[in-house]
């Protein structure tokens, strides 16, 4: 259980239960805690990156019920009953890299890497969407649209877009 560090505060605590990376979990958290802080500071999953805290950069993108969500603008108590996947959830012991990650590496889509986990999650969400709807457009314009909320200062996006194109063309 998490007790918020001794700051005198009137914030009430609330118990929530949800699934994180496949495991059920119950935590008691302050009602004003943000999801990114739940993930990084309570669950100690540091792969989700805090880039701006304002929902502008996409570095903290996670999947909530399979959909890309910005964890710095999401109140943690609202994850109650939902299925949360963070970047750590894509790595299994038997298969440490998801296909999205393999393509990113293969195409040289990673430089400093701070935006990479968020970028991976946005592409993953788009891949899931494509799998559930065969009629959805997956051309480069659609891919750009899917990651337009993820800022990257190193790569100029070209290799990231190529990686996603390769991933989505190979799958279908």
């Amino acid at each position, binding site marked *: 259980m998490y007790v*918020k*560090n*001794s*700051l*005198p*505060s009137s914030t009430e605590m609330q118990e929530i239960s949800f699934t994180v990376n496949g495991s059920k979990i119950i935590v008691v958290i302050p009602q004003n805690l943000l999801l990114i802080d739940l993930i990084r500071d309570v669950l100690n*999953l*540091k*792969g*989700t*990156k*805090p*880039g*701006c*805290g*304002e929902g*502008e*950069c996409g*570095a903290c993108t996670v999947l909530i019920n399979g959909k890309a969500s910005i964890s710095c603008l999401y109140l943690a108590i609202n994850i109650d009953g939902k299925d949360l996947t*963070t*970047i*750590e959830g*894509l*790595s299994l012991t038997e298969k*440490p*890299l998801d296909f999205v*990650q393999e393509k*990113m*590496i*293969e*195409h*040289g889509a*990673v*430089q*400093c*890497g*701070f*935006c*990479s*986990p968020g970028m*991976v999650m946005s592409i993953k969400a788009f891949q899931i969407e494509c799998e559930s709807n065969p009629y959805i457009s997956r051309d480069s314009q659609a*891919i*750009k*649209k899917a*990651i*337009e*909320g*993820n*800022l*990257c*200062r*190193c*790569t*100029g*996006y*070209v*290799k*990231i*877009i190529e990686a996603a194109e390769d991933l989505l063309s190979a799958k279908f």
Partner: protein
Amino acid sequence: MSKDLKIIGKPQIKIDANIRVTGEARFGHDVQLPNMLYGAILRTKYPVADILSLDTSKAKSLPGVKCVITANDIDTENISYRRDHPILKKNKVNCIRDEIAAVAATSKEIALKALELIEVEYKINEGIFDPFESIKKDSPQINDFIDGKYENKNIAENFHYEHGNLEEEKAKSKFIVTERYTLPRVTHCCMATSNITADYSKTDGKLTLWSTTQVPFLYQRDIARALKMEPSNIRIIQVVIGGGFGSKLDMYPYEPICAILSIKCGQPVQLIFSREEEFIASPTRQPMVFDLTTGADESGRFTFRDVKIILDNGAYTSWGATTPFVMMQTFSSLYHCPACNFDSTAVYTNNIYAGSFRGYGNPQATFALERNIDLLAEQIGMGKAEIRLLNSNYQGEVTNQGLIFNTCGHKDALEKVISITSGNNKPNTDNKNKSKRYKRGIGYASMLHVGGGAKIYPSDGCGTTLKLDPFGYMTLITGSSEIGQGSETVLAMIAAEELGIDISKIKVINTDTDIKPWDVGVHASRTSFVAGNSVLGAVNKLKEKISPTAAIMLKTNIEDLKFENGQIVSVKTGASIALDKVIRAIHFKGNHELCIETYFYEPSSEFADKEFKGNVSGTYAFAAQAIEVEVDTYTGNVKVLDIHVAQDIGKVLNPLGLAGQIEGGVVQGLGYALTEELIVENGYVLNPNFHNYKLPTAMDVPRIHFYPIETEDSLGPYGAKGVGEAPLIPTAAAIANAVADAIGVKINSLPVTPEKVLRAIAEKC
């Protein structure tokens, strides 16, 4: 190079990509130490004010607060290379980022709450925010810590350079263009905000800093000087760095502040900027105003350049004030030019201060120069491609500034991008696209930049230690630093190539000043060249150590040995032996030696003399870009269609990493050209967030075509030159030229916003 290369020149995935793409990579934000406190900095509320009183008592009594410091609590030296910057400001603040107090507490929330409880009484003063105002003789002095180098108290740094006979060349000039160019304030926007974790051990008096510096050894010295400590008692451990681009060349106040908090508390302290703080309190590219006059004779040959530059330094000096070192090379030596008069002045203002940013002044200088070239071509009635080809640099050229171009791909680069785009559009003629609304244009720009280090510091070298273990694996310990650019991978490729072992057997260690040998740091596009040569030197020493034993074991001559596929082979007899077996023989038998060697590489470049003349880099990089744009004359929107980049990179080492550097640089240049500007008004930053500071997104990326020009410089590793800064440098210039070409107006400032385009069209009509 006739040598048959197995690894160099082939696409190699980044050896550190796995941990970055899975979130395992430990950035500063992810460092957690036992008993760690959280630091926060109180900055001034007003850009220019006297601090009448500062009361920290309420903050100190907040439960969870361990320490509150102000200027009165510390005994430190000023920082910055001009020593004009106190870590915490006392009595007076000079710009909106000024640090006046700092707190360490048991949680981030408590630290921030404590800042709110610090009571400050200000007397607001008038500031000077325009460098042309502050340089006036009767303007009040802005920075109280200047050393008296200049008579005018608001001059931070002045550089003068000249060559040739300006008046004579002016007289020869049939065509002369004079323009003023204004370049904006932009900032790095590293995706990871500034961060540091300091851990001072009371028991042994040693300070460990988990830092993002890109110059760890200079930083160690700077921190030590600021804190009045022994440099060797400070250990710098570089965390995974979430973007550098020059922003981590200087040490900033937050870093010694965090160290002091840790020293005072005897506990680790972590300090991380919010994004807003990052926009306000990290450095910017220098805003500059150029007054540039250039001439050409009747055949279109350049005759002279006369340029005066005013740089807005901000309230304190950083390495950024020395960007004229780079700019003067562009004015003296990019395209052949018989006479040059260069004068730059960095002026103190009450704005946030500028630092170093990828390209180091060169994007600004190149913008001014390349815009003027287009205007000269128009005056002469000459093609914009033609005038550039006529004046281009060439192999064997020794420029008037003393730069020696042993290899030079300038003309090849120009010819490449010109031939690719010729036929698409002819400048100054009707657009092929007849639409009244959408106008297309092409712009060209070149660049010259150091490509083999830059001799400024007493040493421009890099050390490497190679350690082979008894199983044939290698630890490559390099002084150089990885900031995402892929240096770890290139250095491992070089070692793998030379030693004939698989790259997966190489571990790179490059983050700890207690372990790694000295290096001047990541800057000046120097790492592949300098650290690469250093690895080559170390591998050669290692092979010299291994070869005698291998020769005996293979019953062959040392000269006949070849290292390949994890084996040492005698090319004479065909006999081979596994490398690890030889290593074990050296270690466990005979003289009992370890296969460890250290090598230090110092580039053969020289220091510039008092007139700034001299061959300061091991080699020079050249590039040309041709950019096609479409301008919507109804909305003023500029759409960049295609960017053609031809760059003299010497030799392709890792095509995958190279393409990433090119594309990333070009898109930074795109942002500089069209959307980015940190707006500072009366000293306040008006757009400190990604909503209002517009970085390019995936939607903005044009088609980027890259044509490497391999000139194989004899001094570079396998012929390679520096790459990293170049792709950004000419992009904004070429885009501005393309917009000007499309709609027939002058573009004299950046960013080229829709408002400016519409205004220019309106003024034309």
